[in-house]
Protein backbone atom coordinates (compact mmCIF):
# COMPACT_ATOMS: atom_id res chain seq x y z
CA UNK A 1 0.00 0.00 0.00
CA UNK A 2 1.49 3.32 -1.04
CA UNK A 3 1.17 6.07 1.53
CA UNK A 4 2.05 9.70 2.04
CA UNK A 5 2.68 11.37 5.37
CA UNK A 6 1.59 15.01 5.54
CA UNK A 7 3.24 17.23 8.18
CA UNK A 8 2.83 20.86 9.18
CA UNK A 9 6.31 22.38 9.24
CA UNK A 10 4.84 25.77 10.20
CA UNK A 11 4.02 24.40 13.62
CA UNK A 12 6.37 24.52 16.64
CA UNK A 13 5.32 20.95 17.51
CA UNK A 14 6.87 19.52 14.31
CA UNK A 15 9.15 17.10 16.15
CA UNK A 16 6.14 15.69 18.06
CA UNK A 17 4.33 15.17 14.76
CA UNK A 18 7.32 13.20 13.43
CA UNK A 19 7.65 11.14 16.62
CA UNK A 20 4.01 10.09 16.62
CA UNK A 21 4.04 9.18 12.91
CA UNK A 22 7.27 7.20 13.34
CA UNK A 23 5.85 5.34 16.32
CA UNK A 24 2.67 4.55 14.40
CA UNK A 25 4.66 3.30 11.41
CA UNK A 26 6.78 1.12 13.70
CA UNK A 27 3.66 -0.66 14.93
CA UNK A 28 2.22 -0.98 11.43
CA UNK A 29 3.57 -3.66 9.12
CA UNK A 30 1.08 -3.26 6.27
CA UNK A 31 2.81 -0.28 4.66
CA UNK A 32 5.75 0.04 2.31
CA UNK A 33 8.41 1.96 4.17
CA UNK A 34 9.73 3.96 1.22
CA UNK A 35 7.07 6.42 0.28
CA UNK A 36 6.78 10.14 0.69
CA UNK A 37 6.52 12.77 3.40
CA UNK A 38 5.01 16.08 2.36
CA UNK A 39 6.06 18.97 4.59
CA UNK A 40 4.37 22.35 4.35
CA UNK A 41 6.71 25.01 5.79
CA UNK A 42 7.14 28.77 5.81
CA UNK A 43 10.59 29.43 7.31
CA UNK A 44 13.43 28.43 4.89
CA UNK A 45 15.94 28.43 7.76
CA UNK A 46 14.17 25.39 9.22
CA UNK A 47 14.49 23.27 6.05
CA UNK A 48 17.44 21.12 7.22
CA UNK A 49 15.79 20.36 10.58
CA UNK A 50 12.43 19.53 9.00
CA UNK A 51 14.06 17.23 6.46
CA UNK A 52 16.19 15.47 9.08
CA UNK A 53 13.16 14.60 11.20
CA UNK A 54 10.95 13.34 8.35
CA UNK A 55 9.96 9.69 8.77
CA UNK A 56 10.53 8.60 5.13
CA UNK A 57 13.45 8.75 2.69
CA UNK A 58 11.51 10.74 0.11
CA UNK A 59 10.62 14.24 1.26
CA UNK A 60 8.60 16.87 -0.59
CA UNK A 61 9.16 20.31 0.93
CA UNK A 62 6.44 22.76 -0.04
CA UNK A 63 6.90 26.40 0.89
CA UNK A 64 3.74 28.33 1.78
CA UNK A 65 3.16 31.66 3.53
CA UNK A 66 1.64 30.18 6.66
CA UNK A 67 -0.63 27.28 7.54
CA UNK A 68 -4.20 27.64 6.32
CA UNK A 69 -6.25 24.50 5.75
CA UNK A 70 -7.68 25.81 2.48
CA UNK A 71 -4.18 26.34 1.04
CA UNK A 72 -2.83 22.91 2.05
CA UNK A 73 -5.98 21.17 0.80
CA UNK A 74 -5.81 22.77 -2.63
CA UNK A 75 -2.14 21.80 -3.04
CA UNK A 76 -2.69 18.23 -1.80
CA UNK A 77 -5.65 17.77 -4.14
CA UNK A 78 -3.56 19.01 -7.05
CA UNK A 79 -0.66 16.65 -6.17
CA UNK A 80 -2.91 13.58 -5.97
CA UNK A 81 -3.66 13.50 -9.72
CA UNK A 82 -0.12 12.89 -11.05
CA UNK A 83 1.04 10.98 -7.96
CA UNK A 84 -1.81 9.13 -6.26
CA UNK A 85 -1.55 7.37 -2.90
CA UNK A 86 -3.64 4.66 -1.22
CA UNK A 87 -3.28 6.22 2.18
CA UNK A 88 -2.63 9.69 3.60
CA UNK A 89 -1.38 9.78 7.16
CA UNK A 90 -1.69 12.94 9.25
CA UNK A 91 -0.53 13.55 12.84
CA UNK A 92 -3.20 14.13 15.49
CA UNK A 93 -2.61 17.86 15.99
CA UNK A 94 -5.15 20.52 15.03
CA UNK A 95 -3.98 20.77 11.40
CA UNK A 96 -3.75 17.01 10.79
CA UNK A 97 -7.19 16.36 12.24
CA UNK A 98 -8.93 18.82 9.92
CA UNK A 99 -6.91 18.06 6.79
CA UNK A 100 -7.52 14.28 6.90
CA UNK A 101 -11.31 14.58 6.88
CA UNK A 102 -11.51 17.32 4.29
CA UNK A 103 -8.94 15.79 1.93
CA UNK A 104 -10.81 12.46 1.90
CA UNK A 105 -13.96 14.32 0.95
CA UNK A 106 -12.21 16.11 -1.93
CA UNK A 107 -10.55 12.94 -3.22
CA UNK A 108 -13.72 10.88 -2.87
CA UNK A 109 -11.94 8.63 -0.38
CA UNK A 110 -12.72 7.83 3.24
CA UNK A 111 -11.47 9.24 6.53
CA UNK A 112 -11.21 8.52 10.21
CA UNK A 113 -9.91 10.89 12.89
CA UNK A 114 -7.83 10.09 15.99
CA UNK A 115 -6.83 6.58 14.88
CA UNK A 116 -4.68 4.55 17.26
CA UNK A 117 -4.12 1.37 15.25
CA UNK A 118 -4.33 0.25 11.64
CA UNK A 119 -4.22 -3.00 9.65
CA UNK A 120 -5.11 -4.07 6.13
CA UNK A 121 -7.73 -6.70 5.42
CA UNK A 122 -8.18 -7.58 1.72
CA UNK A 123 -9.98 -4.66 0.08
CA UNK A 124 -10.43 -2.65 3.22
CA UNK A 125 -8.52 -1.36 6.21
CA UNK A 126 -9.39 -1.89 9.86
CA UNK A 127 -8.69 0.91 12.35
CA UNK A 128 -9.36 1.45 16.02
CA UNK A 129 -10.08 4.72 17.79
CA UNK A 130 -11.60 6.05 21.03
CA UNK A 131 -15.41 6.37 21.12
CA UNK A 132 -17.98 7.16 23.85
CA UNK A 133 -15.82 10.05 25.18
CA UNK A 134 -12.87 7.70 25.48
CA UNK A 135 -14.67 5.18 27.70
CA UNK A 136 -14.55 2.63 24.85
CA UNK A 137 -12.50 1.76 21.82
CA UNK A 138 -14.27 1.21 18.50
CA UNK A 139 -13.08 -0.95 15.60
CA UNK A 140 -13.96 0.46 12.16
CA UNK A 141 -13.61 -0.74 8.59
CA UNK A 142 -12.95 1.65 5.69
CA UNK A 143 -13.17 0.57 2.07
CA UNK A 144 -12.87 3.67 -0.15
CA UNK A 145 -9.38 4.71 -1.27
CA UNK A 146 -7.56 6.92 -0.63
CA UNK A 147 -7.84 6.42 3.11
CA UNK A 148 -7.10 9.63 5.00
CA UNK A 149 -6.30 9.02 8.65
CA UNK A 150 -5.30 11.39 11.42
CA UNK A 151 -3.60 9.78 14.39
CA UNK A 152 -4.73 9.84 17.99
CA UNK A 153 -2.88 12.40 20.10
CA UNK A 154 -0.04 11.14 22.22
CA UNK A 155 1.05 8.10 20.18
CA UNK A 156 4.70 7.57 21.07
CA UNK A 157 7.33 4.89 20.70
CA UNK A 158 10.96 4.11 21.36
CA UNK A 159 12.60 4.59 17.95
CA UNK A 160 11.54 8.24 17.70
CA UNK A 161 14.43 9.82 15.90
CA UNK A 162 16.05 7.04 13.96
CA UNK A 163 18.44 8.66 11.47
CA UNK A 164 17.73 8.23 7.74
CA UNK A 165 21.07 8.64 5.96
CA UNK A 166 20.08 9.24 2.34
CA UNK A 167 17.23 11.57 1.44
CA UNK A 168 15.51 12.20 -1.85
CA UNK A 169 14.35 15.78 -1.60
CA UNK A 170 11.85 17.50 -3.85
CA UNK A 171 11.19 21.19 -3.30
CA UNK A 172 8.51 23.54 -4.51
CA UNK A 173 7.54 27.10 -3.66
CA UNK A 174 3.78 27.54 -3.51
CA UNK A 175 3.76 30.71 -1.43
CA UNK A 176 1.86 32.53 -4.16
CA UNK A 177 -0.72 29.78 -4.62
CA UNK A 178 -4.24 29.50 -3.25
CA UNK A 179 -4.48 32.48 -0.90
CA UNK A 180 -7.86 32.03 0.80
CA UNK A 181 -9.87 35.05 -0.35
CA UNK A 182 -12.33 34.91 2.54
CA UNK A 183 -9.58 35.92 5.00
CA UNK A 184 -9.30 39.70 5.11
CA UNK A 185 -6.87 39.94 8.00
CA UNK A 186 -4.80 37.53 10.08
CA UNK A 187 -2.65 37.79 13.20
CA UNK A 188 -1.07 35.20 15.46
CA UNK A 189 -0.49 35.33 19.19
CA UNK A 190 2.25 32.78 19.71
CA UNK A 191 1.35 30.42 22.51
CA UNK A 192 3.50 30.02 25.56
CA UNK A 193 5.52 26.87 25.00
CA UNK A 194 3.69 23.70 25.95
CA UNK A 195 6.99 21.90 26.39
CA UNK A 196 7.19 22.50 30.13
CA UNK A 197 4.07 20.40 30.70
CA UNK A 198 4.70 17.93 27.87
CA UNK A 199 8.21 17.13 29.03
CA UNK A 200 7.84 17.50 32.82
CA UNK A 201 8.98 14.63 35.04
CA UNK A 202 6.62 15.70 37.82
CA UNK A 203 3.13 16.97 37.05
CA UNK A 204 0.46 18.33 39.37
CA UNK A 205 -2.99 18.18 37.72
CA UNK A 206 -5.95 20.05 39.23
CA UNK A 207 -9.58 19.12 38.55
CA UNK A 208 -13.07 20.53 38.99
CA UNK A 209 -12.91 19.87 42.74
CA UNK A 210 -10.51 22.77 43.27
CA UNK A 211 -13.65 24.90 42.81
CA UNK A 212 -12.23 28.39 42.13
CA UNK A 213 -9.62 30.52 40.43
CA UNK A 214 -8.18 31.47 43.82
CA UNK A 215 -7.61 27.81 44.57
CA UNK A 216 -6.00 27.36 41.16
CA UNK A 217 -3.56 30.15 42.03
CA UNK A 218 -2.80 28.47 45.36
CA UNK A 219 -2.26 25.18 43.54
CA UNK A 220 0.13 27.02 41.24
CA UNK A 221 2.17 28.09 44.29
CA UNK A 222 2.26 24.51 45.58
CA UNK A 223 3.40 23.24 42.18
CA UNK A 224 6.21 25.81 42.03
CA UNK A 225 7.42 24.85 45.50
CA UNK A 226 7.39 21.18 44.43
CA UNK A 227 9.29 21.92 41.16
CA UNK A 228 6.35 20.37 39.32
CA UNK A 229 4.58 21.51 36.15
CA UNK A 230 0.92 22.40 36.64
CA UNK A 231 -1.92 21.26 34.38
CA UNK A 232 -5.71 21.17 34.72
CA UNK A 233 -8.73 19.20 33.56
CA UNK A 234 -11.26 20.60 31.04
CA UNK A 235 -13.78 22.03 33.56
CA UNK A 236 -11.03 24.12 35.20
CA UNK A 237 -9.93 25.60 31.87
CA UNK A 238 -13.53 26.06 30.62
CA UNK A 239 -14.46 27.97 33.78
CA UNK A 240 -11.62 30.36 33.05
CA UNK A 241 -9.81 29.50 36.29
CA UNK A 242 -6.69 28.44 34.35
CA UNK A 243 -5.32 29.32 30.90
CA UNK A 244 -6.14 26.95 28.01
CA UNK A 245 -2.49 26.03 27.51
CA UNK A 246 -2.64 24.20 30.84
CA UNK A 247 -5.36 21.83 29.64
CA UNK A 248 -4.46 18.15 29.99
CA UNK A 249 -6.41 15.44 28.16
CA UNK A 250 -7.81 14.27 24.86
CA UNK A 251 -8.39 17.84 23.65
CA UNK A 252 -5.29 19.27 25.33
CA UNK A 253 -1.80 18.16 26.29
CA UNK A 254 -0.80 14.51 26.59
CA UNK A 255 1.74 14.37 29.43
CA UNK A 256 4.37 11.71 29.97
CA UNK A 257 5.80 12.24 33.48
CA UNK A 258 7.37 9.94 36.03
CA UNK A 259 4.94 11.17 38.70
CA UNK A 260 1.48 12.70 38.35
CA UNK A 261 -0.35 14.09 41.35
CA UNK A 262 -4.03 14.19 40.34
CA UNK A 263 -5.70 16.70 42.65
CA UNK A 264 -9.52 16.77 42.93
CA UNK A 265 -10.06 15.33 39.44
CA UNK A 266 -12.97 12.97 38.77
CA UNK A 267 -10.97 10.89 36.30
CA UNK A 268 -13.10 11.07 33.15
CA UNK A 269 -11.50 9.16 30.23
CA UNK A 270 -10.99 12.42 28.32
CA UNK A 271 -8.75 13.65 31.15
CA UNK A 272 -7.19 10.27 31.98
CA UNK A 273 -5.89 9.86 28.44
CA UNK A 274 -3.71 12.92 29.16
CA UNK A 275 -2.00 11.38 32.21
CA UNK A 276 -2.15 7.63 31.55
CA UNK A 277 1.48 7.48 30.41
CA UNK A 278 2.63 8.58 33.89
CA UNK A 279 4.72 5.94 35.62
CA UNK A 280 3.13 6.74 38.99
CA UNK A 281 -0.31 8.30 39.43
CA UNK A 282 -1.31 9.53 42.88
CA UNK A 283 -4.91 10.70 43.34
CA UNK A 284 -6.01 13.01 46.12
CA UNK A 285 -9.79 13.24 46.33
CA UNK A 286 -12.56 13.36 48.91
CA UNK A 287 -14.74 10.94 46.91
CA UNK A 288 -13.64 7.30 47.27
CA UNK A 289 -15.92 6.37 44.34
CA UNK A 290 -14.33 8.80 41.87
CA UNK A 291 -13.05 6.99 38.77
CA UNK A 292 -9.57 8.42 39.30
CA UNK A 293 -9.11 6.28 42.44
CA UNK A 294 -9.16 3.01 40.46
CA UNK A 295 -7.06 4.55 37.70
CA UNK A 296 -4.32 5.60 40.14
CA UNK A 297 -1.49 3.62 41.70
CA UNK A 298 -1.98 5.35 45.05
CA UNK A 299 -4.88 7.34 46.45
CA UNK A 300 -5.44 9.57 49.46
CA UNK A 301 -9.10 10.06 50.36
CA UNK A 302 -9.18 13.44 52.09
CA UNK A 303 -9.30 17.19 51.61
CA UNK A 304 -6.67 17.94 48.99
CA UNK A 305 -5.57 21.24 50.52
CA UNK A 306 -4.53 19.74 53.84
CA UNK A 307 -2.80 16.77 52.18
CA UNK A 308 -1.00 18.90 49.60
CA UNK A 309 0.16 21.52 52.10
CA UNK A 310 1.68 18.84 54.32
CA UNK A 311 3.22 17.06 51.35
CA UNK A 312 4.73 20.32 50.10
CA UNK A 313 6.14 21.05 53.57
CA UNK A 314 7.75 17.60 53.78
CA UNK A 315 9.28 17.76 50.30
CA UNK A 316 10.64 21.28 50.85
CA UNK A 317 12.08 20.28 54.22
CA UNK A 318 14.04 17.43 52.64
CA UNK A 319 15.06 19.58 49.69
CA UNK A 320 16.56 22.24 51.98
CA UNK A 321 18.63 19.80 53.99
Amino acid at each position, binding site marked *: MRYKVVLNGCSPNFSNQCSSVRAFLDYTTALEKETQTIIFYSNPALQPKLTALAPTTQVHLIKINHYEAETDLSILTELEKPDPADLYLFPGDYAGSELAVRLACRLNGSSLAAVDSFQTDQDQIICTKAVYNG*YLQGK*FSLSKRPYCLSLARGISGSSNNQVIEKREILQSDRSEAYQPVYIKGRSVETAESLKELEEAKFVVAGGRGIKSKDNYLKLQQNARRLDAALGVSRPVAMNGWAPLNKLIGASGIITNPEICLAIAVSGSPAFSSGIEKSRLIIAINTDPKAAIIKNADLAVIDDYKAVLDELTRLIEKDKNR
Partner: protein
Amino acid sequence: MNVLVCFKVVPDLDQLSGSDWLVDGCSRVETRFVKKIINPYDESALELALKLADQARGKALTTNLNALTIADSGANLTLKSLRALGYQEAVRIEADTEPDFTPEKVAALIAAYIRNTNVFDLIMMGRQSGVGDNAKTPLLTAEFLQWPCITQVTAVEKDSAGTYKVTAMADEGTVIRVIEPPCVLAVGNAPSSTLRVPTLKAIKEQADLPVKTYAADKYRNATPHLPLKPDAELLNIEVVNRKRKGIIVEGADAAEKAQILYQSYLKGWLAEL
Protein backbone atom coordinates in the same frame (compact mmCIF):
# COMPACT_ATOMS: atom_id res chain seq x y z
CA MET B 1 -26.60 38.65 9.49
CA ASN B 2 -27.98 35.15 9.88
CA VAL B 3 -26.21 32.67 12.10
CA LEU B 4 -27.13 28.99 12.30
CA VAL B 5 -25.94 26.94 15.25
CA CYS B 6 -26.23 23.15 14.91
CA PHE B 7 -26.35 21.14 18.10
CA LYS B 8 -26.92 17.64 19.35
CA VAL B 9 -28.47 16.39 22.58
CA VAL B 10 -26.32 13.55 23.90
CA PRO B 11 -26.29 11.19 26.89
CA ASP B 12 -24.14 12.42 29.79
CA LEU B 13 -21.69 9.52 29.64
CA ASP B 14 -20.03 10.52 32.92
CA GLN B 15 -23.26 9.38 34.64
CA LEU B 16 -22.70 5.75 33.61
CA SER B 17 -21.16 3.48 36.22
CA GLY B 18 -18.54 0.77 35.61
CA SER B 19 -21.00 -2.08 35.02
CA ASP B 20 -22.94 -0.01 32.45
CA TRP B 21 -19.92 -0.27 30.15
CA LEU B 22 -20.12 -4.05 29.74
CA VAL B 23 -20.43 -4.36 25.99
CA ASP B 24 -19.89 -8.06 25.29
CA GLY B 25 -20.38 -8.64 21.58
CA CYS B 26 -22.28 -5.38 21.04
CA SER B 27 -21.51 -2.39 18.90
CA ARG B 28 -23.56 0.07 20.96
CA VAL B 29 -24.10 0.89 24.64
CA GLU B 30 -27.63 1.33 25.95
CA THR B 31 -27.90 5.07 26.72
CA ARG B 32 -31.64 5.69 26.28
CA PHE B 33 -32.17 6.02 30.02
CA VAL B 34 -29.12 8.17 30.75
CA LYS B 35 -29.61 11.87 31.58
CA LYS B 36 -29.31 14.01 28.44
CA ILE B 37 -27.21 17.15 27.99
CA ILE B 38 -26.33 19.42 25.09
CA ASN B 39 -23.02 18.22 23.66
CA PRO B 40 -20.51 20.48 25.54
CA TYR B 41 -18.79 21.78 22.37
CA ASP B 42 -22.22 22.55 20.84
CA GLU B 43 -23.23 24.27 24.08
CA SER B 44 -20.17 26.52 23.68
CA ALA B 45 -21.22 27.24 20.08
CA LEU B 46 -24.74 28.19 21.21
CA GLU B 47 -23.37 30.54 23.87
CA LEU B 48 -20.72 32.09 21.56
CA ALA B 49 -23.52 32.91 19.10
CA LEU B 50 -25.51 34.62 21.88
CA LYS B 51 -22.40 36.63 22.83
CA LEU B 52 -21.92 37.53 19.16
CA ALA B 53 -25.50 38.83 19.02
CA ASP B 54 -24.95 40.84 22.25
CA GLN B 55 -21.77 42.36 20.85
CA ALA B 56 -23.32 43.15 17.44
CA ARG B 57 -26.25 44.84 19.19
CA GLY B 58 -23.72 47.17 20.79
CA LYS B 59 -22.65 48.16 17.28
CA ALA B 60 -26.30 48.66 16.23
CA LEU B 61 -26.15 45.57 13.99
CA THR B 62 -28.94 43.00 13.90
CA THR B 63 -28.21 39.31 14.26
CA ASN B 64 -30.72 36.57 13.57
CA LEU B 65 -29.86 33.50 15.59
CA ASN B 66 -31.11 30.12 14.43
CA ALA B 67 -30.68 26.69 15.99
CA LEU B 68 -30.94 23.32 14.27
CA THR B 69 -30.88 19.78 15.56
CA ILE B 70 -31.47 16.41 13.92
CA ALA B 71 -33.27 14.44 16.58
CA ASP B 72 -36.53 12.97 17.80
CA SER B 73 -39.09 15.00 19.75
CA GLY B 74 -37.01 14.60 22.94
CA ALA B 75 -35.02 17.65 21.76
CA ASN B 76 -38.09 19.94 21.67
CA LEU B 77 -37.60 21.19 25.22
CA THR B 78 -34.05 22.30 24.43
CA LEU B 79 -35.24 24.03 21.26
CA LYS B 80 -37.87 25.95 23.26
CA SER B 81 -35.24 26.96 25.83
CA LEU B 82 -33.08 28.30 23.03
CA ARG B 83 -35.97 30.40 21.74
CA ALA B 84 -36.41 31.68 25.30
CA LEU B 85 -32.75 32.72 25.24
CA GLY B 86 -33.16 34.77 22.08
CA TYR B 87 -32.85 32.34 19.18
CA GLN B 88 -35.41 33.55 16.63
CA GLU B 89 -35.77 30.13 14.99
CA ALA B 90 -35.19 26.72 16.56
CA VAL B 91 -35.77 23.91 14.09
CA ARG B 92 -35.78 20.15 14.36
CA ILE B 93 -35.30 17.77 11.47
CA GLU B 94 -36.78 14.40 12.26
CA ALA B 95 -33.88 11.98 12.60
CA ASP B 96 -33.78 9.39 9.81
CA THR B 97 -30.36 8.12 10.79
CA GLU B 98 -28.69 6.82 13.93
CA PRO B 99 -26.61 9.97 14.40
CA ASP B 100 -23.64 8.77 16.44
CA PHE B 101 -21.53 6.94 13.86
CA THR B 102 -22.83 8.44 10.61
CA PRO B 103 -21.25 11.91 10.38
CA GLU B 104 -21.43 11.89 6.56
CA LYS B 105 -25.22 11.46 6.63
CA VAL B 106 -25.65 14.07 9.36
CA ALA B 107 -23.43 16.61 7.59
CA ALA B 108 -25.21 15.95 4.27
CA LEU B 109 -28.56 16.72 5.89
CA ILE B 110 -27.26 19.88 7.55
CA ALA B 111 -25.72 21.04 4.25
CA ALA B 112 -28.97 20.32 2.40
CA TYR B 113 -30.94 22.33 4.99
CA ILE B 114 -28.53 25.26 4.65
CA ARG B 115 -28.68 25.14 0.83
CA ASN B 116 -32.46 24.92 0.88
CA THR B 117 -32.86 27.77 3.36
CA ASN B 118 -30.22 29.87 1.64
CA VAL B 119 -30.10 32.68 4.21
CA PHE B 120 -27.24 31.82 6.57
CA ASP B 121 -23.84 33.43 6.38
CA LEU B 122 -22.24 31.79 9.41
CA ILE B 123 -22.64 28.20 10.59
CA MET B 124 -21.42 27.27 14.06
CA MET B 125 -21.27 23.88 15.76
CA GLY B 126 -19.10 21.95 18.19
CA ARG B 127 -15.98 20.34 16.79
CA GLN B 128 -16.90 16.89 18.14
CA SER B 129 -19.52 15.10 20.19
CA GLY B 130 -19.46 12.16 22.49
CA VAL B 131 -20.61 8.64 21.66
CA GLY B 132 -19.22 8.73 18.09
CA ASP B 133 -16.29 11.09 18.79
CA ASN B 134 -16.07 11.40 14.99
CA ALA B 135 -14.79 15.01 14.87
CA LYS B 136 -16.01 15.22 11.27
CA THR B 137 -19.45 16.86 11.03
CA PRO B 138 -18.44 20.57 10.74
CA LEU B 139 -15.59 19.72 8.35
CA LEU B 140 -17.84 17.66 6.09
CA THR B 141 -20.60 20.26 6.20
CA ALA B 142 -18.10 22.84 4.95
CA GLU B 143 -16.89 20.53 2.19
CA PHE B 144 -20.43 19.68 1.04
CA LEU B 145 -21.27 23.38 0.91
CA GLN B 146 -17.85 24.21 -0.60
CA TRP B 147 -17.43 26.81 2.12
CA PRO B 148 -14.27 27.49 4.13
CA CYS B 149 -14.05 26.17 7.66
CA ILE B 150 -12.19 27.36 10.74
CA THR B 151 -11.67 24.82 13.51
CA GLN B 152 -10.96 25.11 17.26
CA VAL B 153 -12.84 28.42 17.42
CA THR B 154 -12.90 30.06 20.86
CA ALA B 155 -14.55 33.44 20.13
CA VAL B 156 -16.37 35.27 17.35
CA GLU B 157 -17.27 38.95 17.04
CA LYS B 158 -18.80 41.16 14.42
CA ASP B 159 -15.90 43.20 13.02
CA SER B 160 -17.68 45.44 10.54
CA ALA B 161 -20.97 45.25 8.66
CA GLY B 162 -19.55 42.63 6.29
CA THR B 163 -16.89 40.84 8.31
CA TYR B 164 -16.37 38.78 11.47
CA LYS B 165 -13.37 38.48 13.77
CA VAL B 166 -12.80 34.82 14.60
CA THR B 167 -10.36 33.65 17.28
CA ALA B 168 -9.18 30.06 17.08
CA MET B 169 -6.58 27.82 18.67
CA ALA B 170 -4.00 26.51 16.21
CA ASP B 171 -0.78 24.53 16.44
CA GLU B 172 1.21 27.75 16.18
CA GLY B 173 -0.77 29.62 18.89
CA THR B 174 -3.94 31.68 18.84
CA VAL B 175 -4.91 32.81 15.34
CA ILE B 176 -7.22 35.78 14.90
CA ARG B 177 -8.75 36.05 11.45
CA VAL B 178 -11.00 38.73 10.01
CA ILE B 179 -13.23 36.83 7.60
CA GLU B 180 -15.88 37.50 5.05
CA PRO B 181 -18.77 35.01 5.24
CA PRO B 182 -19.95 32.44 4.40
CA CYS B 183 -17.94 30.20 6.68
CA VAL B 184 -18.36 27.17 8.95
CA LEU B 185 -16.92 27.57 12.46
CA ALA B 186 -16.10 24.42 14.45
CA VAL B 187 -16.07 25.49 18.10
CA GLY B 188 -13.38 24.00 20.36
CA ASN B 189 -12.38 24.66 23.95
CA ALA B 190 -13.96 28.09 24.40
CA PRO B 191 -13.46 29.35 27.97
CA SER B 192 -16.44 30.72 29.91
CA SER B 193 -18.98 29.47 27.38
CA THR B 194 -21.50 27.70 29.59
CA LEU B 195 -24.94 28.33 28.08
CA ARG B 196 -26.85 31.02 29.96
CA VAL B 197 -30.16 30.16 31.63
CA PRO B 198 -33.42 31.65 30.30
CA THR B 199 -35.81 33.51 32.61
CA LEU B 200 -38.93 31.67 33.78
CA LYS B 201 -41.07 34.29 32.06
CA ALA B 202 -39.32 33.65 28.74
CA ILE B 203 -39.69 29.88 29.15
CA LYS B 204 -43.41 30.22 29.84
CA GLU B 205 -43.87 32.37 26.74
CA GLN B 206 -42.30 29.64 24.59
CA ALA B 207 -43.77 26.59 26.32
CA ASP B 208 -46.94 26.23 24.24
CA LEU B 209 -45.58 27.42 20.92
CA PRO B 210 -44.82 24.51 18.57
CA VAL B 211 -41.33 23.62 17.38
CA LYS B 212 -40.81 23.78 13.63
CA THR B 213 -40.21 20.19 12.55
CA TYR B 214 -39.34 18.90 9.10
CA ALA B 215 -38.94 15.45 7.59
CA ALA B 216 -35.39 14.51 6.56
CA ASP B 217 -36.64 13.41 3.12
CA LYS B 218 -37.56 16.99 2.27
CA TYR B 219 -33.82 17.80 2.20
CA ARG B 220 -32.31 14.43 1.28
CA ASN B 221 -34.40 14.19 -1.91
CA ALA B 222 -33.08 17.56 -3.02
CA THR B 223 -29.45 16.49 -2.66
CA PRO B 224 -29.14 12.94 -4.03
CA HIS B 225 -25.42 13.46 -4.75
CA LEU B 226 -24.54 13.77 -1.05
CA PRO B 227 -23.49 10.60 0.80
CA LEU B 228 -25.97 8.26 2.47
CA LYS B 229 -23.34 5.91 3.88
CA PRO B 230 -20.66 6.58 6.48
CA ASP B 231 -16.99 6.37 5.42
CA ALA B 232 -16.16 4.14 8.33
CA GLU B 233 -18.36 1.28 9.46
CA LEU B 234 -18.31 0.50 13.17
CA LEU B 235 -17.61 -3.22 13.64
CA ASN B 236 -17.47 -3.51 17.42
CA ILE B 237 -16.61 -1.74 20.67
CA GLU B 238 -14.44 -2.72 23.61
CA VAL B 239 -13.90 -1.33 27.09
CA VAL B 240 -10.64 0.58 27.57
CA ASN B 241 -9.00 -0.67 30.73
CA ARG B 242 -7.15 2.08 32.59
CA LYS B 243 -7.23 0.40 35.99
CA ARG B 244 -4.16 0.50 38.24
CA LYS B 245 -3.57 -0.78 41.75
CA GLY B 246 -5.57 1.96 43.49
CA ILE B 247 -3.86 1.46 46.88
CA ILE B 248 -5.54 3.66 49.47
CA VAL B 249 -3.09 5.42 51.80
CA GLU B 250 -4.62 5.17 55.29
CA GLY B 251 -3.97 7.51 58.24
CA ALA B 252 -5.64 9.23 61.17
CA ASP B 253 -5.94 12.59 59.39
CA ALA B 254 -4.85 14.41 56.26
CA ALA B 255 -1.41 15.28 57.65
CA GLU B 256 -0.67 11.69 58.65
CA LYS B 257 -1.82 10.38 55.27
CA ALA B 258 0.50 12.89 53.58
CA GLN B 259 3.39 11.79 55.79
CA ILE B 260 2.81 8.09 55.00
CA LEU B 261 2.41 8.84 51.30
CA TYR B 262 5.67 10.77 51.29
CA GLN B 263 7.80 8.49 53.47
CA SER B 264 6.58 5.15 52.11
CA TYR B 265 6.22 5.94 48.42
CA LEU B 266 6.82 9.41 47.01
CA LYS B 267 10.22 10.13 48.58
CA GLY B 268 11.82 7.22 46.72
CA TRP B 269 10.25 8.24 43.41
CA LEU B 270 11.33 11.88 43.82
CA ALA B 271 14.90 10.79 44.58
CA GLU B 272 15.06 9.15 41.14
CA LEU B 273 13.92 12.20 39.16
